[in-house]
């Protein structure tokens, strides 16, 4: 039915055992480290008095966790979205030579839409934070 694309299937190559093992060890190490930290932080016997932050003997008012300013939260969201866009651009970039001009046009449109988005948040003040932005 659909045109057959030559060679566009999985290659008969086994996952490299050595690199997999190294990678696995690293991840397992990280996992156990995180597990250890999580249990270490979570199961400690504690009472409110012990958990209270030390502020030179003065009883703290309010929570120690300060609320982040809003623009930072927006920037985190923008980062996530552009991160995903980068993943697509990366997929194109590793095979750009075999995709030719058609691929170039496709990714150009993709990047154009991405730039539109960037322009929009710029124009609407999504990138401005701090007290300096007094205009309009």
């Amino acid at each position, binding site marked *: *039915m*659909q*045109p057959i694309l030559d060679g566009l299937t999985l290659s008969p190559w086994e996952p490299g055992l050595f690199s997999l093992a190294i990678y696995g060890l690293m991840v397992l190490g990280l996992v156990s480290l995180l597990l250890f930290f999580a249990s270490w932080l979570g199961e400690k016997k504690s009472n409110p008095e012990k958990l209270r932050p030390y502020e030179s003997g003065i009883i703290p008012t309010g929570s120690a966790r300060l609320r982040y300013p809003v623009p930072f939260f927006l920037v985190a969201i923008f980062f996530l979205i552009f991160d995903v866009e980068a993943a697509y651009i990366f997929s194109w970039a590793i095979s750009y030579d075999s995709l030719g001009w058609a691929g170039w046009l496709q990714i150009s449109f993709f990047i154009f839409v991405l730039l*539109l988005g960037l*322009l*929009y948040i710029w*124009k609407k003040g999504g990138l401005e934070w701090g007290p300096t932005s007094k205009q*309009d």
Partner: protein
Amino acid sequence: MMNVWTLFIPELYCLLMAVVFFGLAMSARPNPRRDYFAALFMAGVGVVVALACVRLEGTLFFEAYRVDLFSQVFKVMLAMGFFLVVCLCTELNGIEERHHPEFYLFLTTCTLAMMMLVSSVELLTIYVALELSSYSLYILVPLRRGHGVDVEAGIKYLMVGACASAVMLFGLSYVFGVTHTTYLVEIIHVLPGVIGTPAAIVGLLLVLCGFFFKLAVFPFHFWAPDVYQGAANQVTAYIATASKVAAVAIIMRVVALSGGSSKYLVDMLVTLSIASMTLGNLVAIVQKDMKRLLAYSSISHAGYVLIGILSMSATGYASAIFYALAYLVMNLCCFLVVVKVSHDGSDLKIAQLAGLHRRAPLLAMALMLAVFGLAGIPPTIGFTGKFLVFAAAMEKGYVALVIIAMINATISLYYYILVVKAAYLMEPDEELPRLPVSIPTKVLTVALVTAMVVFGVAPSYLLEVARAAARMLM
């Protein structure tokens, strides 16, 4: 190469519209009049473009995208739905003025996505197009000017929608795992061989869940009342009409995959259809808010459409297409009245309709006809639609189902009559001024009413088109 892009013209036109609205959204100064007229003009041209492309046929993008009569008919319906919803936006008071371009932008992207949805014949494209349309709607709902209700509705919509789409995705992974292809054309060939295996059935049902969410069929219906009430009136009109039409189209495509050979699937669809009809109708009776009532009525109508689809015959599909069109026209007519009566953009209680026949006789008449159409009373298009759907089911021998559906239609008559009673027989507590109805609104109302009656009495032309479109599925 040139004719490849001609096939894509309606979508390209929508894309152009989206870019224009994006440009308008960038401009510093809000200007609702300019936005409205730009939207009206471009949406009107969009209908013309979609009509002009109705005879095109061909495939695009490695066969992932098929342009045929089926898809083009639905594209015309979507373009019409979009245009009519834009017509209702003369007083877009439910949304802040500086967000009007964004409102139109989201409507346009949603229409674009649904146009792609009805044309896609490949699972990945279907899924991505469905998500684009869903996300446009998720953001449209909380765009309403501060009520507090809109955020809640937006959250419920997003949460239920995200769960439904995840369930659907898992079903897709089963379907792909069983059939090793994502092209519907090939799945049709492979699936009958494996339809007996539980994995294929479970996969197909899970996939349908995602679409049932869009159509608000029984287990995924509970977002509908809240979203209908919480969203701005025009957004609700769009969700209730255009998005339902697209959902019907895609459910037909997926159900047609099974080739009518699976007993389980039919049983399941029958159950869901009965559950939706009954639940929607029974709960609608106690509603006080007009939009909530329409929401429950849409749940029951989803049940009726399913009857046509589960017949899995050319007649059944044709009747479902006809029913979708009828539903689009009738519901838009109802929402026209809702939007015009509550012109400050607030929710409309049924009691607020009192005295409508003196405040705005034309609107009252339109409301009565639309509501009778929804109930399925003869001279309207709604009766013809129900008749065709039931006839298709009888042909296949689902007598019990048709009887239950008829009982349901009778129950529904009760609450539809309540609406008409409010508009015609009840008097408001204090005297309310006449509603100003502008000339374009009058023209629009008359056009909708004429369409409802004329196509109700003489449906043969539309039915021919629907039959021809349905043949494309088989």
